């Protein structure tokens, strides 16, 4: 009996590579970009449901009012040091954002809704990441308004510089807190970040270090702009990672 021998030509390396890629792409889940993920969350969840409880809204308003009050009880314009002002802006810029984000998280833990919400299509971390982004926009708007008033009251405070310092402070702090939550996986690490941020900045303000003062007052604006863009990029990257963060029991 004549045996028919089939000869299958061995594909070249490039063909192997292309076909392997095609198989992998066809088999693996399409990775949704950060922007389109946020877009679909916005469409499906909307802004209304970002506040799961009315008490969160009340809490947000109280925090905003207290923060405004803090700015109002600042020293007389003649007695104010401009570097202290900038240091204060850097320290306080993430406070509204922080309280809004932390309150949400603790409210879910206290109400016992954490587990149910973790098993929803958009889980607690994804919602918090989405809210953080929205809240950071709200915080920037609030900070900007406050800075406009400050630059009107205090002649030495320049709006552009103050805006850069404030936004850099907000994003730098957000990167730190997200890092603490994702890498250290503990409430203690998150609390330590908040305390560290506050004490560290207070120390720098009251030590009146000339280098720190120089950075705040004399650093060229374009350098600030670069730092601002860098922290914004780092913040968005951290948020993207947070969206895919995997919860492990006992973390919080």
């Amino acid at each position, binding site marked *: 009996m004549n045996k028919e021998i089939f000869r299958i030509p061995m594909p070249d390396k490039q063909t192997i590579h292309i076909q392997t890629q095609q198989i992998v792409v066809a088999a693996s889940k399409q990775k949704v970009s950060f922007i389109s993920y946020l877009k679909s969350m916005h469409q499906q969840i909307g802004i209304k449901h970002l506040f799961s409880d*009315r008490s969160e809204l009340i809490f947000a308003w109280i925090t905003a009012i207290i923060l405004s009050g803090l700015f109002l009880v600042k020293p007389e314009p003649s007695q104010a040091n401009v570097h202290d002002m900038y240091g204060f802006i850097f320290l306080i810029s993430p406070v509204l954002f922080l309280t809004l984000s932390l309150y949400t998280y603790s409210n879910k833990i206290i109400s016992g809704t954490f587990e*149910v919400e973790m*098993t929803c*299509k958009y889980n607690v971390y994804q919602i918090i990441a989405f809210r953080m982004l929205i809240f950071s926009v709200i915080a920037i708007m609030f900070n900007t308004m406050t800075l406009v008033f400050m630059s009107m009251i205090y002649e030495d405070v320049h709006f552009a510089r103050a805006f850069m310092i404030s936004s850099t402070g907000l994003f730098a702090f957000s990167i730190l807190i997200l890092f603490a939550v994702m890498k250290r996986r503990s409430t203690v690490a998150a609390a330590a970040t908040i305390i560290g941020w506050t004490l560290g900045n207070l120390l720098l303000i009251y030590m009146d270090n000339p280098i720190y003062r120089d950075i705040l007052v004399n650093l060229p604006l374009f350098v600030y702009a670069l730092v601002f863009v860098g922290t914004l990029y780092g913040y968005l990257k951290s948020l993207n990672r947070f969206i895919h963060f*995997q919860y492990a029991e006992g973390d919080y």
Partner: protein
Amino acid sequence: MIVVKNVSKYYGNFCALNNITLELHNGVYGLLAPNGAGKTTLIKMLATLITPSQGEIVYDGKNIIHMDDEFRALLGYLPQQFGYYNNYSPKQYLLYLAALKGMGRKDSIRIIKELLEKVALSEVGNKKMKKFSGGMIQRVGIAQALLNNPKVLILDEPTAGLDPKERARFRNLLSELARDRLVIVSTHIVSDVESIANEVIMIKHQEVLYKDSVENICNTLAGHVYETTIDYGHLDAFRNRYTVLLEKQESGEMNIRFIHKGAAAEGWLSVTPSLEDVFLYEYRDEIRMEV
């Protein structure tokens, strides 16, 4: 179909579950074990709340952790302690959860109306939940688990706080739902699953003891369960000699249901074993420790 492949869970040196392998198809599965046996650990792994230390859980061939939101979109989950926001009404809360489940508002309103009717809460749909009884809260919990018409429904102690009438209604609801989906009910109350479960999974010493139909599990004790009547004075001696399942005082004497794996004595009546008998027999040590 869900396949649990050689799954173990460790917390430090403590082993909560050891090398569990299960294959689960559409229908009702009753996960039965005393408190602390590892039921909730398994349930939480199936709900992606915790990840296995070893092994994997796959749904239609895909690892449920890798499926991420794709799996959660198929999942309905009622935790052991169902939490809620005090100031919300069931309608508001269910609308909020429907949004998190990625459901459109129009569909959500229609489905919520139907679900509230199913769990007999239509009349209090707009009332604040802080005024609700435990049973009413539990029914909101059942409704939220069904919101997205899940393909996999996982319920951890779903009948806690429900009265007998509500329990019966819940069992009927589950039977109806299980026709085209996988339902896993974790409980330590035998009657919750005895009549409706296609299969019962019993966990003992962190491993699967049985995964079989109620009938087959009951047959493991066939010919060993008896009933008899003894004097009250002989009770302690009887308890020491046999595994007593049930004691009932009647006209100054004790009616005893017990297990004996040997020849029957005179006056003993051989009876058909129930799932509760198997449960009490297999977990006798754990139950004694709880007492």
